[in-house]
């Protein structure tokens, strides 16, 4: 599933580079944006917000049954308990994988994604192949991610077309009894919280 950058149809970037520069310069000259604020936004979303936030939520839910109940009943509040909240996570829902149900999320109409818990979305999540196919052929798409779902298990695709944002609560891996939240969080991958992957097994832990 590696890919070369040139599939992304954006090269050469010169034209778009100039276009962005022209718009940003104009907005600066008109006094409509503050350059220091722009730098702070970039730094925040490049370095401070990402799937480690979601992994802490999942690990706590695995370790603490009362937290898990709060998370499933009022995800926004439970996630905020860990200091995680904000833009594109204002109204959160957590959906739980079980022995009978595998959940996976998409936004077919644009690219809505829970930024506070997962960070900014990867390109494939925003791409036409994923958005078009995951609703009609979820098992085929999941197989491309190396995930085979048993025929008697329901695949539940969540199309976040409104303003609710979704986080998948994966099943806790076997062989992790007695693990701390910090240890458990190391097993939680971004894709396991989108639903296109599973958590790492204890054998893969660092």
């Amino acid at each position, binding site marked *: 599933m590696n890919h070369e950058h040139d599939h992304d149809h954006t090269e050469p970037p010169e034209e778009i580079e100039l276009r962005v520069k022209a718009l940003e310069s104009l907005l600066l000259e008109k006094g409509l944006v503050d350059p220091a604020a722009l730098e702070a936004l970039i730094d925040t979303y490049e370095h401070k917000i990402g799937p480690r936030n979601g992994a802490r939520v999942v690990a706590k839910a695995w370790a603490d049954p009362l937290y898990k109940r709060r998370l499933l009943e009022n995800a926004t509040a439970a996630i905020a308990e860990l200091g995680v909240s904000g833009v594109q996570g204002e109204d959160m829902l957590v959906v739980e994988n079980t022995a009978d149900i595998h959940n996976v999320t998409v936004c077919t109409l644009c690219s809505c994604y829970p930024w506070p818990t997962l960070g900014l979305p990867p390109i494939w999540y925003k791409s036409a192949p994923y958005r078009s196919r995951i609703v009609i052929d979820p098992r085929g798409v999941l197989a491309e991610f190396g995930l085979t779902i048993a025929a008697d298990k329901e695949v539940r695709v*969540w199309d976040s077309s409104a303003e609710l944002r979704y986080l998948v609560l994966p099943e806790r891996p076997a062989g992790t009894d007695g693990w701390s939240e910090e240890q458990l969080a190391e097993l939680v991958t971004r894709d396991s919280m989108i639903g296109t992957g599973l958590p790492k097994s204890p054998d893969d832990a660092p």
Partner: protein
Amino acid sequence: MNGIHDLGGMHGHGPVLAEVDEPYFHHEWERRAFSLFPALFVGGHFNVDEFRHAMERMEPAHYLQASYYEHWIHSFETMLLEKGVISAAELQGTAEPTRNPVAAPVLTLDMVPLVVQTGASARVDHAVAARFAVGDQIRAKNFNPTTHTRLPRYVRGKVGRIEADHGVFATPDTMAHGQGEQPQHVYSVSFTALELWGEARADKVYIDLWDSYLEEA
């Protein structure tokens, strides 16, 4: 609108190509483009529904070829021009930039942490009756507005079940066109693979739909 953005259920777009250890940004211009969204949003230059609708109005071939952040840039330019915040001559560099007569709010450095942590919920604190209850069987309406909607084509005319009532939210169909919040309930609605695609497998799609998108079935 029945635009190119409404991709659910289409064939022919190829395999999903996931990049290992993908960075958040691949080019410096993507960082710049990203940062303009919160800045312009807080500046009050558009709401998120107007932002999405401007992307949906992109020429279809261009939409598919352009990357995500190019969609954003297209949307910023479109809205700022349409709303008169900038002029085409200013953007092309053929006219000197001028300060706008009415000063817009500016997202400043000190506001960034609070904005990031708070966001802007589309939930509306407004008592509106719900027309449907959990367990109701409904049909997604068959309508085809040329304007903004969040009812994708693949569920139109299909019968589903109300699974949850998420409460009251602003309506994107009006918000995108300056017609106000029109608060109404949003429901989680499930559709079977059999109903959507004619395939007898156990799978379902759950999608969040506004009250006005639904009718009794």
